């Protein structure tokens, strides 16, 4: 039987760059997840569900906390906007969404502050992921 989890988008302030005034709220599809590796598990942390990201990408700190040894992990190069690239380290971890454990892998880098859930390693675990912008909700169907 299908199980669907729904999460409200998370509002962030958006500022007028000319006046500095907070003009409105910008809603992002972020969900609380936990990461684990062996016996170590993190606190719940907000991660952005990003359909435009190829893979999961997390701040290096979370990998350090899980006891990952970056020196022994494959180096990968991440590209986004513009021509710059950053180095990341790829490792096997578990991602927890509610009580659902996803045995997956993620890339860790020092330059990325916001945890990102991408297509390979997150989206592929679900039957569907539906963004309902009019409701400001995202639905994850197992």
């Amino acid at each position, binding site marked *: 039987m299908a199980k669907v989890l729904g999460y*409200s988008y*998370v*509002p*962030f*302030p*958006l*500022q007028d*760059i000319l006046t*500095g005034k*907070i003009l409105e*709220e*910008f809603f992002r599809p*972020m969900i*609380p997840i936990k990461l684990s590796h062996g016996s170590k598990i993190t*606190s*719940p*942390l*907000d991660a*952005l569900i*990003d359909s*435009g*990201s190829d893979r999961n990408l997390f*701040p290096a*700190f979370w990998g350090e*906390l899980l006891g990952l040894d970056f020196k022994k992990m494959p180096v990968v190069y991440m590209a*986004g*906007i513009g021509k710059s690239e950053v180095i990341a380290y790829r490792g096997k971890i578990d991602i927890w969404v509610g009580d659902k454990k996803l045995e997956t892998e993620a890339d860790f880098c020092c330059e*990325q*502050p*916001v945890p*990102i859930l991408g297509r390979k390693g997150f989206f592929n675990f679900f039957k569907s992921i539906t963004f309902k912008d009019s409701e400001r909700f995202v639905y994850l169907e197992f």
Partner: protein
Amino acid sequence: MLKKLSSAILIPYENQWVALSSDRKKVLAANKDLRKLHKKAENLNNKDIIISYVPSFGKTYSF
């Protein structure tokens, strides 16, 4: 019942890491350094928190 979330509580914490209550109504701790924030959060002895990053308010993002 759905609770309406507000971004107003985040305004003092631009470019910082925050530990939020699980209902996202309160900021329990904040720091510009994730390591320091994590230590603060551990000292709260509260497992019902969410650690989140508050990006700059003057930018839109393509992560």
